[in-house]
């Protein structure tokens, strides 16, 4: 039996929505084997990992907290990937956003007032944008591959943060721990309920705004055309360079807001590990969500669950918390594999033996 791919005349509408679900199903099957291989009862382990966090109020809250930066970064990435630009340095833009947003609260702690928080958030957004502007500039001016430049800048951003919190920005009352001073009350994003903060609202607004831009505006159409068929876009008078810069700045800005949102809303100070890899996990959120803003929102919640589930599995089963990364990588692999059904049909062809072929010949 041989399996062949046959082009569909049209992309399958059904599979567009079915393939992520199929991928999740395959991830669970994979999880069963993984837990069994680690010597755990797979069904109990999967229950602890994927179901139990959904039954308790505190873990539901924590899922929303973790989904917030994922959704903010993920919708931005959905936009850039649609435009066929590969920004994979969102982790760096997140970090620089957090750094720039912290300039005022850390360096001028006496600054107070209702305008402080908006200023902090704007600084964060600009930080992320500035960091994304570097690969954007190199790409349109010199033609340098944005995949590698944006990724290299992640390491630079993390080292910059590390230097700041161990050097000039170290909290003078922090007993030499590598962390900045705590944000004053006016620089902290107010809480919604429990650990959840108003940053979640920003994420929802960003999702709605990008859904409208991508689906309902000429600009969004322009981005999609440039991504799908740059030559056609050029004939229509769309500037590829301007699109590249625009999408990179938007996604960088959103990643920056996610960074400062996490620092100001959840952590309350800078320290070297402000992100458990949100910038990279958001790439998975973008693909799992079909590069569709609403889809990204759901995908972010699901990926947040993999973080929480990983912690839960570590506590109650004693498995490594790295298992969260394994599950996240597996989800992306299965999504990409299942996407084949959107554009191709599988065709099962019985294998003909060479001998049979010889008989066919006259």
């Amino acid at each position, binding site marked *: 039996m041989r399996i062949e791919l046959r082009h569909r005349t049209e992309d399958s509408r059904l599979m567009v929505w079915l393939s992520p679900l199929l991928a999740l199903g395959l991830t669970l099957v994979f999880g069963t084997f993984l837990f069994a291989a680690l010597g755990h009862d797979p069904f109990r382990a999967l229950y602890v990992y994927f179901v139990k966090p959904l039954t308790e109020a505190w873990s539901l809250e924590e899922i929303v907290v973790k989904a917030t930066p994922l959704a903010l970064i993920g919708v931005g990435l959905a936009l850039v990937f649609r435009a066929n630009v590969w920004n994979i340095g969102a982790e760096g833009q997140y970090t620089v956003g957090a750094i720039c947003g912290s300039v005022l609260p850390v360096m001028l702690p006496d600054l107070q007032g209702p305008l402080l928080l908006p200023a902090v958030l704007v600084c964060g957004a600009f930080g992320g944008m500035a960091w994304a502007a570097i690969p954007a500039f190199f790409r349109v001016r*010199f033609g340098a591959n944005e995949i590698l430049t944006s990724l290299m800048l992640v*390491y630079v951003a993390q080292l910059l943060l590390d230097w700041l919190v161990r050097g000039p920005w170290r909290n003078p009352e922090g007993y030499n721990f590598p962390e900045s001073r705590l944000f004053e009350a006016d620089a902290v994003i107010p809480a919604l309920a429990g650990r959840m903060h108003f940053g979640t609202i920003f994420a929802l607004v960003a999702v709605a705004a990008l859904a409208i831009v991508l689906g309902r505006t000429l600009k969004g159409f322009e981005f999609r055309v440039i991504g799908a068929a740059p030559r056609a876009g050029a004939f229509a008078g769309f500037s590829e360079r301007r699109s590249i810069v625009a999408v990179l700045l938007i996604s960088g800005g959103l990643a920056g807001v996610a960074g400062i949102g996490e620092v100001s809303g959840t952590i309350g100070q800078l320290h070297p590990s402000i992100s458990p890899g949100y910038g990279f996990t958001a790439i998975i959120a973008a693909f799992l969500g079909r590069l569709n803003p609403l889809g990204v929102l759901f995908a972010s919640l699901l990926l947040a669950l993999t973080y929480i589930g990983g912690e839960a599995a570590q506590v109650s089963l004693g498995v490594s918390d790295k298992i969260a990364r394994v599950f996240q990588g597996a989800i*992306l692999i299965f999504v990409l594999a299942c996407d084949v059904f959107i554009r191709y049909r599988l065709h099962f062809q019985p294998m003909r033996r060479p001998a049979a072929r010889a008989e066919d010949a006259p």
Partner: protein
Amino acid sequence: MTGFEAVVLTIVTAATPLLIAALGELVTERSGVLNLGVEGMMIVGAVTGFAGAQLTGSPYLGVIAAMAGGMALSSLFGFLVLRLAANQVASGLALTLLGLGLSGMIGEAFIGQPGLKLERIDIPFLTDLPVVGTILFGQDPLVYASVTLAVCVSRFLFRTRAGLALRAVGNNHASAHMLGVHVIRTRFLAVLFGGACSGLAGGYLSLAYTPQWVEGMTAGRGWIALALVVFASWMPLRAAVGAYLFGGALILQFHAQAEGIPLPSQFLSALPYIATVAALVILSRDRWTARNDSPSCLGQVFVPDR
């Protein structure tokens, strides 16, 4: 050993993993497949190599385990992008993310264990030669293997029939297919070779460079190797030159720190990454040559129609 010798030795050891990984990726890209999962395959190679050496007691079996680890991951990638026609950029990223997770899980049992080191080879008399002795004749076996590999890859690509077929597949898969070259099989073999090299490069880190397992110990070297392929404009011998230049940039920071240069260590650590960006920008500036060098079908999906 003089100071000069020590510097050259450290540059060579820093350059070797970059060279091995870049050669593998170079062959993969020459066949028209862009595998962004080098970092993931390297880190998996690092952990399987370390585990293999610990469990068998032989660093040489560790080297084989490292290559097997990289190949296992690359075969997954090959299945995704060649059989299922998945997007290569996204699949490569997925491979890196999965590799980082898997390596963390596998490696947890080995954290803090003293590793087995791939011993340097001493050749009687020759190693004792002044100045060039240790540099040329006192390296570990993988250093020699990497230089040999560069020459072999170059000969293979430009002097053999199979190499010609591989380049044809990368430059025009439709024509190659019509001429009877098996595009998918050629690409799959190229991907496997890339995986073996990435795994070996990772194994070099955990068996020779710093014989221990540290989580995330590749620290972006896989990505630097990817940049190196662009830097070398897909030429194996240029990749060797580039690897030693980049190795120098990686090592410069340690010597600068030792010399007491009054810069924060984080700035020096950022140097290799900044150098990579700078190299990419400078090389891409001349767009005409850059476009000419890259395999024309790089990153494009091929589904054979009968």
